[in-house]
C-alpha cells in the first residue's frame, strides 16, 4: 500500500447571482504562480458573463441598498467570521498566488480580514460623517443623506490579489452598492475562493459577482454598459484605464481612476464615499414666529 493519495484538484468557477457557473463561453485559462508552476484552471469570462453579472447585480440592488445599514454591517461582519474560519486556505492560496512566504501571506490575510471588519463597522456610521443637517436661510429642515450609486464594476488590483481585492470590494458593498468584480488576471484564485465565503455567509446572491479573465476583454463592455452606474479602475493599466474612462462617459458613469495605494495602510473613507450620491431633502418647519424661530 502506498501512502500517496491522489490530489483532489479544485474546479474554480465564476460567482454570478449567488451561483457558481462556468464561463458561458466554456473557456478556461491556466493560472500559474510567479515561478510559472501551474496552480489551476480559472474560467476565462466573456462579455456575456459580464452582462449576466450586471443583470444579477441590478436585481440584487433593491434589496441590498434597501437593507438597513445596521443589517449590512452584520452581514459583512459575518463574512469576516467566515474568512477567519477559512484562514488557512487563504494563506495557502495567497502564498501561492503572490509568491509570498507563509508568514507574509498570513499577515496579508489577517490584514484583509481586519479590513473587512473595519468596513463592516462603517456601514451605519458613514451617513453621520458625510451626511447630516444643513443650516439654511428659511423655515426648513435641510438634510443630506448619502445614497448608494447602484451597480459598480470593479477592476480588482492586479498585484494584491486578496488584500487589494478586499480593500476595493468591501467599501463598495458596505454603502449599499452591488458589485461586478473582475479579479486579478494573473492571480484570480483567492478572489474565486472569496466567492465561496460570500455564498456561505449571509450576503444575498447577486450583491457581489466575481469574474475571472482578461480585463481588456471584459471591462470595455462593462464600461460601456448602460446599466452600470460606476466603475472602479483600480486594476486597469494606464492605456486600458483611458479607454474605459472614455467608454464610461457615455452614460455619465462615476469613475474612480487608478491610483497608487499601499493596501497595508489604513484606507480612510475615500473609497467609501467614491460611490455614494448625496440626496438632499427639504422639510418645511412652518412659518417662523416673531422671534425668528418656529419653536
Amino acid at each position, binding site marked *: 500500500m502506498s501512502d500517496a493519495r491522489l490530489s483532489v484538484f479544485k474546479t474554480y468557477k465564476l460567482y454570478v447571482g449567488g451561483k457558481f457557473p462556468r464561463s458561458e463561453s466554456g473557456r478556461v485559462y491556466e493560472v500559474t504562480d510567479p515561478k510559472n508552476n501551474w496552480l489551476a484552471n480559472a474560467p476565462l469570462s466573456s462579455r456575456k458573463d459580464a452582462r449576466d453579472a*450586471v443583470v444579477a447585480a*441590478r436585481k440584487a440592488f433593491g434589496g441590498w441598498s434597501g437593507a438597513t445599514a445596521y443589517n449590512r454591517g452584520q452581514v459583512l461582519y459575518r463574512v469576516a467570521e467566515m474568512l477567519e474560519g477559512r484562514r488557512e486556505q487563504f494563506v495557502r492560496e495567497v502564498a501561492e498566488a503572490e509568491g509570498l512566504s507563509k508568514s507574509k501571506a498570513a499577515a496579508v490575510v489577517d490584514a484583509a480580514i481586519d479590513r473587512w471588519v473595519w468596513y463592516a463597522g462603517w456601514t451605519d456610521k458613514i451617513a453621520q460623517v458625510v451626511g447630516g443637517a444643513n443650516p439654511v436661510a428659511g423655515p426648513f429642515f435641510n438634510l443630506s443623506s448619502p445614497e448608494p450609486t447602484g451597480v459598480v464594476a470593479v477592476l480588482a488590483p492586479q498585484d494584491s490579489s486578496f488584500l487589494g481585492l478586499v480593500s476595493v470590494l468591501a467599501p463598495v458593498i458596505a454603502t449599499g452598492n452591488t458589485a461586478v468584480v473582475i479579479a486579478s488576471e494573473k492571480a484570480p484564485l483567492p478572489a474565486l475562493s472569496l466567492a465561496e465565503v460570500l455564498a456561505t455567509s449571509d450576503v444575498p446572491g447577486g450583491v457581489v459577482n466575481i469574474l475571472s479573465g482578461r480585463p481588456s476583454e471584459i471591462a470595455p463592455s462593462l464600461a*460601456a*454598459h*448602460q*446599466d452600470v452606474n460606476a466603475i472602479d479602475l483600480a486594476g486597469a493599466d494606464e492605456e486600458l484605464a483611458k479607454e474605459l474612462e472614455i467608454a464610461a462617459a*457615455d452614460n455619465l458613469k462615476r469613475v474612480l481612476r487608478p491610483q497608487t495605494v499601499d493596501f497595508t495602510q489604513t484606507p480612510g473613507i475615500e473609497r467609501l464615499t467614491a460611490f455614494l450620491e448625496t440626496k438632499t431633502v427639504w422639510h418645511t418647519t412652518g412659518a417662523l414666529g416673531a422671534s425668528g424661530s418656529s419653536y
Partner: protein
Amino acid sequence: MPTTAPPAHALADVTASDSTLRRFLHGLPGVDTVGLEARATSLGTRSIKTTAKAYAIDLAISMVDLTTLEGADTPGKVRALGAKAVHPDPTDRTAPTTAAVCVYPDMVAVAKEAVAGSGVKVASVATAFPAGRAALDVKLADVRDAVAAGADEIDMVIDRGAFLAGKYLKVYDEIVAVKEACGTSARLKVIFETGELSTYDNIRRASWLGMIAGADFIKTSTGKVAVNATPANTLLMLEAVRDFRAQTGIQVGVKPAGGIRTSKDAIKFLVLVNETAGQDWLDNHWFRFGASSLLNDLLMQRQKLATGRYSGPDYVTVD
C-alpha cells in the same frame, strides 16, 4: 403525421356526435414525449447572430400581443400600453409596432382609442377568462360585449373541465358558438391552458378540436397558471397547424403566451416556427407572442445591436 386520419372533407363528419369526435381525437397518434422534448431542445440550440438576429428581433416585436390582464388595470395603464404598442421604442422610430394589445373586455374601447390609426390591433380575452367557469350565455355575452366595443381579436378559454371529463362535443359546440358571436369582424384565438391539460396527447387533441371548430388561432395558455408556454407544447401545436393545413387547406395561427421573457426565448420560438410550420407562419398574422415583459428585453437587445453597448432597464419604458 396522421396518415390514417380522414381526408379534409371528412373532418366535418367527425363532429356528428360525441362518439365520432371522441373516436377521431383518440385516433390521433400518441405523442412521443421524449422525442418531442428532445426536438424542442435541439432546435433551441441554434445560434442566431448579427443580421439574422436583428431580423428576428424586429419580427418578434411585430408579433407581440402586448398584454395587461390585471385586476388593477386602469384606463391610464391601458392608454400607456397602447402608446407603447404604437411606438415601442420612443427613442427609435424605426422599431416596428407590436401586433396587438390584449386587454379585458371592459378596456377594449380605451385600447381602441389609444391605438387608433396605427394598425395595431386590439385583442380582448373573453368567455369568463381565465377560468372559463361560467354559463355559455354569460360567456357569449362577454364576447359580444368585446366585439361591440371594437375588439379585432377575441381570446377565448376552452372549458377545461369538460375537456378533461371527455365531453369533447360540449367544448366543440362552445367554440363554434363563440366563433359565431365573433362574427366576421373578429378573429378567434382559442386558449387551451396547456398547463391544465396534463398530457401532450391532450394538447394534440385540444389543438385539433379547436381547429375543427373554426379557431383562427390556437393559444397555449392564459399566463395565469404555473406552467405556461413551453417550447415543447408550442412545437406540438405547430405540428398540429401544419398537419391541419395539409389536410384541409385551412391555415391556423399559433400563439404561445406566458413565461416568454427574454429575446433569446423568443428567437427559439421563431426557430421552432420556421422549422416546424414553415415560413408561411413567420408573420404576425399567423404567429404571436402573448407577453408583456418580453417587449422590453427585445428593445434592449435591439438597442444593443444598434449601438454595440449593453442597454439597461433605465432606457425602456416601465410598465
